[in-house]
């Protein structure tokens, strides 16, 4: 019996390890970083521009310094995907709301992959992320 369990565990572990790295095949790289895929350095993304813009208390929009959210450029680079940028924008909104400020936050991020000519707009929403609609759509 113990041998059967051991065999099932070993085969199951290997089978899972063979299946998990397949998942990026089904998702466009603009959606999320390909964690758990063993795709080390397979993709190069170039994003110009890529930042959040905020308009506080009706003032003209300004870039949000990434240093406000992060302490490492590594984290900034890994935020640059269509799945994570809205969450970062919502966090900026949340912090403004905490300080009692009225703010509008937008994403301006366009990237290319592996030097290919196609440009991907990582802001699929295109509107203010501080709105109730954005919170409902992108909030947890």
């Amino acid at each position, binding site marked *: 019996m113990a041998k059967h369990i051991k*065999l099932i565990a070993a085969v199951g572990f290997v089978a899972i390890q063979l299946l998990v790295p397949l998942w990026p095949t089904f998702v466009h790289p603009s959606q999320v970083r390909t964690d758990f895929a063993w795709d080390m350095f397979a993709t190069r993304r170039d994003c110009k521009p890529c930042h959040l813009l905020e308009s506080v208390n009706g003032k003209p929009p300004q870039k949000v310094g990434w240093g406000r959210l992060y302490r490492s450029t590594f984290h900034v680079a890994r935020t640059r995907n269509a799945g994570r940028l809205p969450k970062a924008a919502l966090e900026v909104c949340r912090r403004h709301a905490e300080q009692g400020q009225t703010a509008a936050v937008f994403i301006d991020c366009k990237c290319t992959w592996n030097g*290919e000519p196609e440009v991907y707009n990582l802001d699929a929403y295109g509107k203010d992320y501080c709105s109730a609609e954005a919170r409902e759509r992108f909030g947890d």
Partner: protein
Amino acid sequence: MIERLRSYFLVEGSPLSLGIFRVIFGVALVIEATQNLKRVGYYTPSTFHFPYFDWISPLSESTMTTIFTWQLVFAVCFGLGFLTRLSAAGVLLTQGYAFLICALNFRNHVYLELLVTTVLLFSACGAAVSVDAVIGWAWRRWRHKAQDNPMHPEWVPITAQRVIGLQICCVYLYAALHKATPGFLSGYPLSRFLPRAIRNSTVGRWALPPDVLQAAADAMATESWSALAAWLTVGAEGFLAVGLLFRPTRLAAVCVGIALHLGIGLTMDIVTFGLVMTAAYLCFWTPRLRAQGAR
């Protein structure tokens, strides 16, 4: 099919391969714990996180420092083979928690270390080249006055060794498959990040003269050289995925793997990953084998 799986996984062999691997793997874990202690801020509420699970939350700087200090203690104990299973569980818990705090901190070598530690937790990796083995030997000698008292058992189950070997092949397989695209093979990705990585490589600067390093960086900035590097990388990784599995090609695969990781270490400062991957080649070293339970 079942019989073939049984004869591959349910075998016994010498505990030495896994014991030596555990020691080297322990060194990688110690390096990781030390680096975590330098980057405590990445795991605290002072930075914005994307947790893998909502119930995992970043902890205060002092708590994370304590966690990483314990991780270091567990990693040292694990490498030495002292309370091996307990220290493996300790590494898994401390590094596992830190890993789940934020998806932005995902790094392939940490993920690999967690997978390997999970497998080793259920293995006999502490049966040889370990403090546990020495203590057991001394205990048997003192308590039972045992004359025929080897330092480590001759035969232990090596299922874990098989699993780790296949895990390593899986890493190479997907590394090659994900790179086997026109975009990567054009050399563009490597031409963009390799020149800077080479110039900034601490290992490279330590091991190579500055003009050699500069020449390598300049060469990699051109897409023809970086395309060649891309093709060689995919070829090497693809060969390793298969070559390590079969005895006739294993030695060649080991040489290719060491060259590949040495190159990566010199040019990109990626040392821990290479250390774990190349050390895991030991898992393919099975000087003797027999079916589990055979006498």
